[in-house]
């Protein structure tokens, strides 16, 4: 690919030092996002998706700590920046959309207040200009009569409206990268589609890159250009969306795809992946998926599988990737 990488994460390790032991929430993740592209970050709950995103902005909640790795954003390592330098990146260069719009907006401040705050912080404008910009943003995210709605408080807006407002806030300074942490999980299905469509259009309009974090395979299929599948804090597989869906090489990716309830496949029963996500204080040795993997053999428990490029742009972390011939549940 000729396009430049806007974000490159190398061997990121974010650990949580709890009383029960060290939780290795993110344990050596590698991923990259190219300019203008949408990367889907997919995994089960607790696989380290959100922690990865929070690590990028350096706002991992206590007792979490980034202990190793590099996060290169536009060629600069964010981990070497000071707090005040990072504050200038947050919201201005990188936007963040949270999962639950009901809790990610401050209940006691009006929407106008919360939007202009960000604009004033990062752009050299007066209050009036900021307000005009905020109204523009409301038009951009398709909120009806923005001049009136902007004076509302979060509790007066519906869930979909709130998420539109959160999108507007994240985009207020036209960031070049948008992190969307399950932006549609708490919305009902029709609103989900609207918000996804909106994000897709805005992404084109503002020509920014996006990381879409989700556990919903349907959502990534809709929006993402490439997909990175992570499991228990490590990357399993990275490839373009078509390849992930039709030619997956990692058993975990296949298991995820099989577990998607689908009318088209007319499955009698919902498929589940046996077992649960491992305890990240004391994770399984070798490949972290091996206790739940039906293709596992002795070697899987011994060595950590490296992330290997088996085809151009298709990375898999499975030692049996080349010998296994697994079929996508979606067919070829």
């Amino acid at each position, binding site marked *: 690919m000729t396009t430049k990488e806007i974000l490159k994460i190398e061997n990121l390790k974010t650990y949580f030092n709890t009383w029960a032991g060290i939780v290795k929430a993110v344990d050596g993740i590698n991923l990259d996002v190219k300019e203008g592209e949408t990367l889907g970050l997919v995994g089960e709950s607790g696989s380290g998706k959100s922690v990865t995103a929070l690590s990028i902005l350096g706002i991992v909640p206590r007792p979490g700590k980034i202990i190793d790795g590099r996060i290169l954003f536009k060629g600069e390592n964010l981990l070497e920046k000071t707090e*005040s330098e990072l504050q200038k*990146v947050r919201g201005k260069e990188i936007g963040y959309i949270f999962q639950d719009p009901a809790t990610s907006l*401050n*209940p006691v401040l009006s929407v106008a207040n919360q939007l202009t705050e960000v604009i004033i912080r990062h752009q050299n404008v007066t209050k009036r200009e900021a307000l005009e910009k905020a109204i523009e943003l409301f038009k951009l995210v398709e909120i009806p009569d923005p001049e009136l709605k902007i004076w509302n*408080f979060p509790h007066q807006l519906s869930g979909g409206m709130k998420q539109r407002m959160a999108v507007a806030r994240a985009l207020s300074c036209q960031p070049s990268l948008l992190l969307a942490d399950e932006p549609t999980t708490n919305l009902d299905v029709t609103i989900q589609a609207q918000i996804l469509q909106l994000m897709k259009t805005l992404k084109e309009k503002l020509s920014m890159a996006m990381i879409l974090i989700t556990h919903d395979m349907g959502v990534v299929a809709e929006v993402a250009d490439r997909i990175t599948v992570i499991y228990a804090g490590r990357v399993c597989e990275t490839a373009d969306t078509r390849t992930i869906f039709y030619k997956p090489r990692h058993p975990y990716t296949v298991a995820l795809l099989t577990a998607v309830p689908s009318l088209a496949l007319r499955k009698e029963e919902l498929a589940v992946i046996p077992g649960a996500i491992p305890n990240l204080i004391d994770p399984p040795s070798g490949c972290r998926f091996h206790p739940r993997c039906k293709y596992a053999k002795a070697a899987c428990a011994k060595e950590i599988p490296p992330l290997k490029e088996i085809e151009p742009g298709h990375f898999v972390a499975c030692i049996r990737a080349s010998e296994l011939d697994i079929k996508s549940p979606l067919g070829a």
Partner: protein
Amino acid sequence: MIRKKSVESKLLVQNEKKRSKGVSQWNIAWRRFKKNRAALAGALIVGFVIFLAAFDVLIAPFHPNATPGFYIGETRSPPSLKYLFGTDYIGKDVFSQVVYGARSALFVGFASAAIAMSLAILVGLISGYYGGIIDNVLMRITEIFLVIPFLLILLVFLKVITAISPSGGGLSMVVLMIGLFSWAADARIIRGEVLRVKESEFIEASKSLGASKRRIVFRHIFPNVLHIIIVLTTLMIASAILVEAAISFLGFGDAAAITWGQQLQKANEAVKEAWWEGVFPGLFITLLVLGFSLLGNGLRDALDPRLRE
């Protein structure tokens, strides 16, 4: 037909007006407060005392230190039309003293509460938000203030201060002392509330948008704990007034000040012969404290987000 249309358009305009104004949580709280009769009664009492204090010169028939009854033998005379609440041992008008005492009571209440709440808010916010060692140190200091016998230490301090300098600083010194010694419990309550709020996702969200720590504390956390602070302040005002009365009654206050507590202290020696000397100032203390307490409780009910209908 035309008429109907005009009514419709009128409604539309009204709707527009209503919508154009955001309904903040404060609006909701005010609506709820208005329905609470006890709280309104509290507000009325407090308003009444503020009225007395504001127009004391006009309301009181005599200067509080004047002794209109002294030369004409009207000392310790019972309530009458001339002396509404009677006179005291040197012929001062009790009613005039009560009226002028309103200003002192409010000064003591508001000033002590201002000092105490400023400390409580500062300690609570910093301790709750920053956590770690800062929290630990501040909370241990707070605990020291919590365990010392409050009234006793106040009395000792005031005694020492009057011993060092006889003028002692007067009522302001009493206020300062009350303020400095009564912030601890409220600081802990505010800290607890800050701990709850700071884990909210909207705090994380404002971090993700590049807000500085100071901005998060004062702009995002503070308004979210303000409802607690308002309630604690009204209750603090009530308790400060009571404490000042107690100090004065025990003879440790500023003897030159005109306060209800001082009146009580002077009335102490003649409870049997001249009940009016003590009963009226005592009644006003009770009334004002009750007023602030009712107001505080009403505000708590109105501002508590859990009681949303």
